[in-house]
């Protein structure tokens, strides 16, 4: 028996539902040659402002990473602000922060590639490049932290005359292995999808020093059927294989802390908590980078459309919720445990002289994204997303600062409690940020930051069909 339901009122269609699919990048194709030319042009057209900014960054890098680091090496770690209970300071905060930033690249390109999220296509490479350059900063920060950095090779398993092997009981060794693996894998994973674009650049570069550069790196790619097949296979293998590597790296970084016998650190929730924290800062950093690329690079407004920011914004909101859950968990575990030192540490974190850091962290990591990113209109506003991303990154930096220097202030010997304040760490931190930006800027002149072939592939697979009166977007799976 059929039943008829009459709507009580005619529902007004929401403004967001009426969206022309033709505004999406995947349904707005351009001829292949024109798109290639656009990417090449935005790579080569450089304004004087670019060189001014690059020069300023280069000066900062040379002064901080050159001179300040020289001072640290020659005079010892005494020029930093570290002291007895705070043996680990801002250098390790930077390390964890940069490894966190580097997570987003792999997350976006591998997980979104495996899950076939189509709006990922234009910005995978921009994110992957962050992985590689972020890991460079993380490695540099570890070296800055090391007291006798010139003996760093003692941590490498090199056969030597005295048969002294590094101690693989130490979480630092696991860390070294994990970061090295991640650096190699992510560089490979950056390189594989780059090959067709390098070949495109090679074909479109007439002369100059970049011609042999492209020629060598493109590995003679001509775009035959067999080459594409091999490339796709290799990329698939790497996309699946790099996901566990990505999760393992930050878990192992968290074990540097979780394996220690310290109140506040010795917690089983640290592994997933750090992974989510890394994604939180990483996604936010991707939003910033995409905004900068969109507003500075010529023609990139065509590629980086609001829908890309929408995807990032949704991920940011999701990760922010997950992070809030794990942060709550980080309170539950000591509460169940009932350890008095954990309790003292928590009270110190919240009510101590640096309590404002804790409050700021919660505000920008939870309140700001939850208050802004629920709205699609706002998510699709690039500058707004960049500001939210910037605030989240501040919050995540504070989170690492609270875990490391603030956390080690409290230990089981109250006589030794002392507060840490950074000294020369501040210019060196600025140095790592400048080096990251500088590397990114220089890379944007050398390699195409948009994976053109992936965009073209996506555009060929997408089609608008009419279903009755509605126009719907369809996707034919080409693989």
């Amino acid at each position: 028996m059929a039943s008829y339901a009459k709507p009580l009122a005619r529902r007004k269609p929401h403004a967001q539902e009426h969206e022309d699919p033709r505004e999406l990048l995947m349904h707005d194709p351009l001829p292949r040659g024109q798109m290639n030319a656009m990417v090449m042009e935005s790579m080569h057209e450089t304004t004087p402002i670019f060189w001014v900014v690059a020069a300023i960054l280069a000066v900062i890098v040379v002064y901080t990473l050159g001179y300040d680091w020289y001072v640290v090496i020659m005079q010892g770690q005494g020029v930093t602000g570290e002291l007895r209970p705070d043996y680990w300071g801002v250098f390790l905060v930077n390390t964890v922060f940069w490894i966190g930033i580097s997570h987003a690249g792999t997350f976006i390109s591998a997980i979104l590639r495996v899950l076939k999220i189509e709006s990922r296509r234009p910005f995978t490479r921009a994110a992957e490049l962050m992985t590689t350059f972020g890991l460079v900063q993380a490695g540099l920060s570890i070296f800055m932290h090391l007291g006798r950095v010139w003996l760093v090779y003692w941590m490498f398993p090199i056969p030597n005359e005295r048969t002294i092997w590094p101690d693989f009981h130490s979480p630092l060794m696991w860390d070294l292995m994990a970061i090295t693996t991640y650096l190699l894998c992510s560089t490979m994973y950056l390189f594989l999808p780059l090959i067709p674009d390098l070949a495109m650049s090679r074909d479109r570069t007439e002369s100059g020093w970049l011609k042999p550069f492209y020629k060598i790196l493109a590995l003679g790619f001509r775009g035959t059927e067999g080459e594409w097949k091999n490339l796709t296979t290799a990329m698939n293998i790497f996309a699946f294989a790099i996901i566990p590597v990505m999760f393992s790296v930050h878990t192992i970084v968290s074990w540097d802390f979780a394996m220690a016998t310290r109140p506040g650190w010795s917690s089983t929730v640290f592994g997933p908590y750090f992974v989510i924290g890394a994604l939180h800062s990483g996604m936010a950093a991707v939003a910033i980078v995409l905004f900068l690329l969109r507003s500075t690079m010529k023609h990139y407004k065509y590629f980086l459309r609001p829908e890309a920011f929408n995807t990032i914004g949704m991920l940011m909101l999701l990760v922010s919720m997950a992070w809030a859950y794990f942060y709550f968990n980080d309170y539950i575990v000591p509460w169940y445990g009932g350890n008095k030192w954990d309790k003292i540490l928590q009270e110190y974190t919240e009510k101590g002289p640096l309590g404002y850091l804790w409050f700021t962290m919660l505000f920008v990591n939870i309140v700001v994204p939850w208050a802004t990113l629920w709205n699609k209109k706002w998510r699709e506003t690039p500058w707004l997303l960049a500001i939210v991303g910037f605030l989240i990154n501040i919050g995540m930096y504070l989170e690492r600062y609270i875990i490391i220097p603030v956390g080690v202030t409290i230990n089981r010997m109250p006589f030794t409690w002392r507060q840490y304040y950074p000294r020369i760490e501040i210019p060196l931190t600025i140095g790592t940020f400048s080096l990251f930006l500088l590397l990114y800027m220089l890379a944007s002149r050398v390699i195409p930051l948009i994976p053109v072939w992936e965009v073209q592939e996506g555009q060929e697979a997408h089609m608008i069909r009419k279903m009755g009166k509605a126009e719907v977007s369809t996707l034919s799976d080409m693989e």
Partner: protein
Amino acid sequence: MTTNIELPVFTNNSEVELQGKWGMVVDQDLCTGCQACVAACSMENNVPFVGEEDAGYGRAMHWIRIERLWDNTTFPGVKMTSYQPTMCQQCHNAPCEPVCPVYASVHSQSEDLNLQVYNRCVGTRYCGNNCPYQVRAFNWRDYTDARTRPYLTVLQNQLNPDVTVRRRSVMEKCTFCIQRIHGAEDKAKSEGREIRDGEFTSACAQACPANAITFGRLDDPQSAVNKAAAASPSRSRHLLDELQTMPRVTYLTGGV
């Protein structure tokens, strides 16, 4: 594959492990907090002077320190607990050891002591972080460089030749005066006998005017440390015993 080293055999001989070899008893009820042990230890072990600025910042490198703590819970602002001389507890299960990536913080199988190999240290400072007693000292600067510290040209005459002078960026800590242990062992060996309890003592125990610190053999039931600990079992405790680090220093407290 042949190796030219003898790998240590790890056994679970709990009887020996519980006992240990060298130990110390600190009677907090006798301690007057005079800091003589701190001075003696610094002289014996070439602990550098860090200077006024760094010491004020909290980088004094004393291998032993006298802790003063106020018991605010019982009598707010009034009662002070007894002085607590704190040095490396020479844990059997030392948290500082497994975290060192380069085996600079190692366990002596023969003496059951924690050793710090200064030459091997690369300065990750993980051991200092992981030490629950916070008794490790890091050379934040080149405190032994006479070019930047002119007074060292005179003061170097008081350095103990038996002890290494450490350079910057290495971790160091109390060794239970291992140079004295080895000196006594060499002497006993040359005379063809076992080492006798009370034959030598650590610098802090030697300097203590109140005899609050006793140093000696733990594996000898008749030794002074075992007698002192056994004399008042109700007063004896280990620092942070709940961490199961099996420290070799016993504190006596709670008497009058």
